[in-house]
Structures are given as structure tokens and as C-alpha cells.
């Protein structure tokens, strides 16, 4: 990667028109990312008519800005109203919302901005320095390795979202079960569709996400007249992380960056998986130093860093191989093709100027996110001052509209409602929702790769241990389960040693 081209690219990204477009696109990305139900993919589609009228370099910047902005934006609603603005912010609410409930929303959002910024810078470096290398790494992964990787991802299920181990596993398993609904990959048969054609392509992620996180919260709020707790005074002075804060979260940031970029370069894996993985790995590494789930900054930093670190990674297979990692990159691919930018190995040669503007622009975008994010930190917590009676129904309508827009289908919205009820029950009985979402995402990936691995090796099950990469991940999975079991065993012992549960009470 030549420094000269990079500098050229940097200069062109500061051209007034280009910069303005980038700025607006970042704003759009953040805002749409923050609104539950609306996704970055939609923002990209909206921008398509505009893309046709600007230069390819500017178009690339717009797409990147929306993508990165959206990744950060999801954290705003995750923290403030416990509803992830997009799948990749699902892990942010685990510690972000508790912090908001304690009046520390400003701090949570500040950490989110900072972490997203760090993750974004890291992935911009990754994209710039090692894109072709990373692409080659991605190519050396075959179905067996992907399968073992998804098994590893699934082992995180148990502890993601907190709560008792068994509860987490049950939730995750239900997610897996849900992922089997639809047409199977091998013989084209429909499973568990009960005659609903809309279910043939499987249970859509967005309605489930909205239902389990957003609607269930709304239902819980419906239990009683809402008064004080959401109009809590938020501390808006203490936003920017102090040096001490930065030291505390440095481990989270490291985990987030590594996990994010790694998951990103895997074609087919995206921000949603990265955020959970980073959250869980950070949780284990911190151990008792930070109580994840109770509202600790380390718990916000890890997933937010990971999902932004994922953006650069996601763009690697997109640009070098033309393979999207998730829905958003898939739409990006379409947009690129429509404007004549053909991703692939020759992109760096044929469209060098545009690509370098993108690589340089990525850095600029991260700074824009930092700036805009801090502005958002000061402004958006004020939304909590709106009387919850007024706010909740409006959030409901946003969810309805957003879910509807996805596939022009009321069926999706009804499904979201059903999952809202299921999510409500799960909340009440102590089953975490996050593992269910994770199971739903990883289920089809695991099955698809398992199927292919077996097809190619003629039903040879030993291939999963004979391939080194695959074996590595399987060992990691076993370790992951073992440590989870061990720490839950120790927790139980600790709880037993302290005072017994208060006697009396009904039940």
C-alpha cells in the first residue's frame, strides 16, 4: 500500500463536496442506526439514487459512512431505551441500559462513542494495510472450519446475556430450533412452516430482534402506570471517558478490535456475532474485576468496539472478493454494482483512485463519528425526559413501521409482536433474550457449513478434527464450555456460603 496513493486519497476526501457528502452520510447512518426497526441497509437503498449522481469515490465514501455510522448509532437506542437500533448493538444494551437506569447514560454513551471510534480506527488500519492478506486468510477457511467457528460462537450462548447457565442454554437452544424453520439447504424441503409462505425463508432476524428486545420491554412497561424510573435525572456532564476509564477498558478494546476484525473478514459473519463474542470473551477475561451485566463500562466498550472494528473487516471480503458478510454489505454490493464499481481482485488496480479515497476516508469517517457521537451524547439522553406515557407508544409505532418496511409485510410485524410476548415471558422467568437471537443467527450458518462439509468429504465426520483450523476452534469451544461450567459452579458455591435466602415471603 503506497503512502503516496494514500495521501492522495486523504486529500481528495477533504474536498469540500466530498467532505460534505461524507458528513451528511455519517449523520444519516447514525440517525437511522439509532432508530429501532430501521437498518443501515435501508439507508443504503435510500441513497442509491444519489449514488448514481456522484463520483465512484464519493459513492464508496457514502456507503462506508452509512455503514460505520449505523454500527455506532445502534448503541444510542440500546443504551437509552434498551432496544438495539440494529442487530450489532444487541450486546451493548446488556450493560448500557443498566447504566442508563442508574443515571449514567451520558457516561455509557461516551464510552460507546470512544470504543466505536477506536474500533473504527483499528479496522481502517486493517483495511488499509492488510486487505489482500486478510482476503487470502479468509480463503483458507473451508466449510469445516466455519462450522467449528460457529460451534465456538454457539458456546458463547450459554453465558451471553447473563442469568443462570441453564436458562441461557435453553434460550439459545430455542433460537437454534427457530433457525430450522424454513427451506432446508440440501433437498429444498420446507420445515416447520405450517403452511405460512412467509416462513419459507425462515424466521426473519429483525422481527425477532424487535420483538424480543423492544416489544417485550414495552409489554413489561405496560404492567403498571409508568412514573419515575425512566424520567431519572441523567448525568450529562461526565461523558468523555477519563484516563482511568480508558485504562480500565483497554482490555475490552483490545478484545473488541481483534474479535471484530476477525469476524469481519469471515465472509458471512458480521457485526451481530462480533458484538456477542467480544462481550463474552471480555467478560471471561475480566473475571471478577468487573461485574458484567450490572452496568460496567467494560461491558459497553467491548461490543461497541467490536462492531465498529467489524466494518473494516466486512469490507475486506466485499471489496476484494465481492462477497458480502451480512445484509448491509449485501446491499452495499448491489449499490456498488449499480454504479459500476465492480468489487474483486482487480478493484485495487482498476479503480485505484476511488479505493484509496475510501481507505483514507475511513479514517476521516471515524473522526466524524467521534464528533457527531459526542454531540449525540449531549442531546439524545434528553429523550428520557419525555414522559414515558408519550414515548412508549411512539416507540411502538417506530417498531411497527420499521419491521413492516423490511419486507413490506404485516406478517413480519405480527411475528414481532408474538416474539414480543415470548420475550416478555422469558424476561419474567429469567431467561435471557440474547442467546435466543444468537442461536437464530448462528443456527443456519452452522447447518449450512456442516452440510457442505459432509457433502464434500463424503460424510466423513473426522474431517472436523483433521483440519487444523477446525480442530483449533473445536478445542476452543470445549474450553469455553468448561470455563463457563466451572465459573458457574464456583458462583453457586459462593452463593451457598453466604447467608441463606431470606425465610418467609410467599411461595
Amino acid at each position, binding site marked *: 500500500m503506497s503512502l503516496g496513493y494514500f495521501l492522495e486519497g486523504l486529500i481528495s476526501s477533504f474536498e469540500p463536496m466530498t467532505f460534505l457528502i461524507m458528513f451528511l452520510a455519517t449523520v444519516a447512518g447514525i440517525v437511522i442506526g439509532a432508530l429501532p426497526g430501521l437498518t443501515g441497509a435501508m439507508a443504503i437503498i435510500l441513497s442509491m439514487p444519489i449514488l448514481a449522481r456522484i463520483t465512484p469515490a464519493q459513492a464508496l465514501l457514502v456507503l462506508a459512512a452509512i455503514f460505520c455510522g449505523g454500527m455506532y448509532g445502534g448503541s444510542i437506542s440500546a443504551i437509552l431505551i434498551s432496544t438495539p437500533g440494529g442487530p450489532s448493538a444487541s450486546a451493548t444494551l446488556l450493560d448500557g441500559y443498566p447504566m442508563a437506569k442508574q443515571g449514567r447514560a451520558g457516561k455509557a454513551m461516551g464510552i460507546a462513542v470512544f470504543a466505536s471510534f477506536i474500533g473504527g480506527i483499528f479496522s481502517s488500519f486493517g483495511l488499509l494495510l492488510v486487505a489482500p492478506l486478510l482476503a487470502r486468510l479468509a480463503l483458507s477457511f473451508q466449510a469445516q472450519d466455519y462450522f467449528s467457528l460457529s460451534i465456538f460462537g454457539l458456546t458463547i450462548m450459554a453465558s451471553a446475556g447473563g442469568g443462570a447457565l441453564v436458562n441461557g442454554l435453553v434460550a439459545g437452544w430455542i433460537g437454534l430450533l427457530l433457525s430450522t424453520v424454513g427451506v432446508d439447504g440440501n433437498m429444498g424441503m420446507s*420445515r416447520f412452516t405450517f403452511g405460512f409462505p412467509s416462513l419459507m425463508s425462515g424466521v426473519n432476524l429483525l422481527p425477532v430482534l424487535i420483538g424480543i428486545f423492544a416489544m417485550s420491554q*414495552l409489554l413489561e412497561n405496560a*404492567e403498571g402506570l*409508568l412514573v419515575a424510573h425512566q424520567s431519572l435525572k441523567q448525568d450529562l456532564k461526565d461523558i468523555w471517558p477519563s484516563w482511568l476509564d480508558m485504562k480500565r477498558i483497554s482490555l475490552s478494546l483490545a478484545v473488541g478490535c481483534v474479535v471484530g476484525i476477525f469476524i469481519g473478514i469471515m465472509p458471512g459473519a458480521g457485526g451481530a456475532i462480533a458484538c456477542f463474542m467480544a462481550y463474552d470473551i471480555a467478560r471471561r477475561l475480566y473475571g471478577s474485576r468487573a461485574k458484567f451485566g450490572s452496568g460496567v463500562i467494560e461491558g459497553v466498550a467491548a461490543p461497541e468496539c467490536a462492531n465498529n472494528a467489524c466494518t473494516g473487516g466486512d469490507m475486506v471480503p466485499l471489496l476484494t472478493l465481492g462477497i458480502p458478510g451480512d445484509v448491509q454489505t449485501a446491499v452495499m454490493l448491489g449499490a456498488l454494482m449499480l454504479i459500476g464499481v465492480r468489487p474483486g481482485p482487480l478493484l485495487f488496480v482498476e479503480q485505484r483512485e476511488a479505493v484509496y479515497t475510501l481507505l483514507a476516508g475511513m479514517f476521516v469517517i471515524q473522526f466524524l463519528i467521534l464528533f457527531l457521537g459526542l454531540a449525540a451524547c449531549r442531546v439524545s439522553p434528553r429523550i428520557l425526559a419525555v414522559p414515558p*406515557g408519550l414515548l*412508549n407508544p411512539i416507540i411502538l409505532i417506530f417498531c*411497527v413501521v420499521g419491521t413492516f418496511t423490511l419486507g413490506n409485510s404485516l406478517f413480519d410485524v405480527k411475528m414481532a409482536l408474538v416474539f414480543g410476548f415470548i420475550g416478555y415471558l422469558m424476561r*419474567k422467568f429469567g431467561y435471557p433474550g440474547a442467546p435466543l437471537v444468537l442461536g437464530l443467527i448462528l443456527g443456519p450458518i452452522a447447518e449450512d457449513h456442516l*452440510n457442505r462439509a459432509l457433502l464434500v468429504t463424503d460424510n466423513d465426520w473426522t474431517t472436523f478434527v483433521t483440519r487444523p483450523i477446525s480442530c483449533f476452534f473445536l478445542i476452543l469451544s470445549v474450553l469455553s464450555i468448561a470455563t463457563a461450567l466451572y465459573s458457574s459452579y464456583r458462583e453457586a458455591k459462593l452463593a451457598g456460603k453466604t447467608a441463606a435466602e431470606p425465610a418467609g*415471603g410467599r411461595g
Partner: protein
Amino acid sequence: MTFGKRFDALTGAGLLGLAGYVYWEGSSMPQAAKGLGPGGYPVFIAVGMAILAVIRIVQALVRYVRDKNAAPTLTLSRGAFFRVLWFLALVFAYLALLPHAGFIPASIALLVYLTHFYGYRRLWANVLVNVVFTISIYLLFRHFFLVLLPTGGLFG
């Protein structure tokens, strides 16, 4: 109403039943010559779920036997639960009515009622905000996002 530890066992039993159903469905699907047939995965999941269900049942019963006075899993007042169900019913009705009544009237009605339901009693502010909001959303989506929210027979 309270749900004690015995209820957990019931959930476990329910899960076991679910696992059984999935297993039965899965194994009745055709086998593939190579690779995983459509039934393979569900069977695997069913087995896992059955194991978890059994663990849950055992755990619940053990806890119940060990400490009869343990705090219940869940305490929910009757009133609260009915409010939740009523909310659900309303939203379902709203969704069913959308294609017929149209987005704007239906949403305004729902919003105004729910805002009141959630405890915000200033009726005029309620109506004003919700009307402006609904119409803005509709226009925004129609002209900017180019998505036609359902329009009913009355206004279509």
C-alpha cells in the same frame, strides 16, 4: 399470582414435549444420501433440548425439595398481567385493522389510547403530538423512503 419452583419443572416438562415433537418431525423427514438431510439438524436440536429440559426439571424439583420457603421465581399481580394481555390484544387488533382502516387513522387511534393507558393524562397534548407524529411518519416514508404504509379502504 406467584410462580414457585414447581413451575420451573413445568416449563421443563413443556420443553421436553417440544423436544419430542421436533424429534418426531425431524426423523420423519427423508434422509439424504450424503450430507445432512433436512431431518438431521432438527433431530440434533431435539436431543439437546431434551437434555436441557431434563436438567431444568431436575434442578427445579431439587430446589423445591431443598428449600420450601425459597423466594418464588416470579410474582406478578393479576392486574399487571391483564394489562399486558390487554395491550397485546389492542396491538393485534390494530395490525388486523391496518389494511382496512389505513395507517393514519388506525395509528392515531392506537397512539392516543395507549398514551392515556400508560398514564399520560394531558389529553390535548397527547392528541396533538400523536397526530403530528403519525402524519409526519407517513409522509416521510411515502415520499422519502418510498414505502407505502397501508392505506385503508376509506382513504386509499
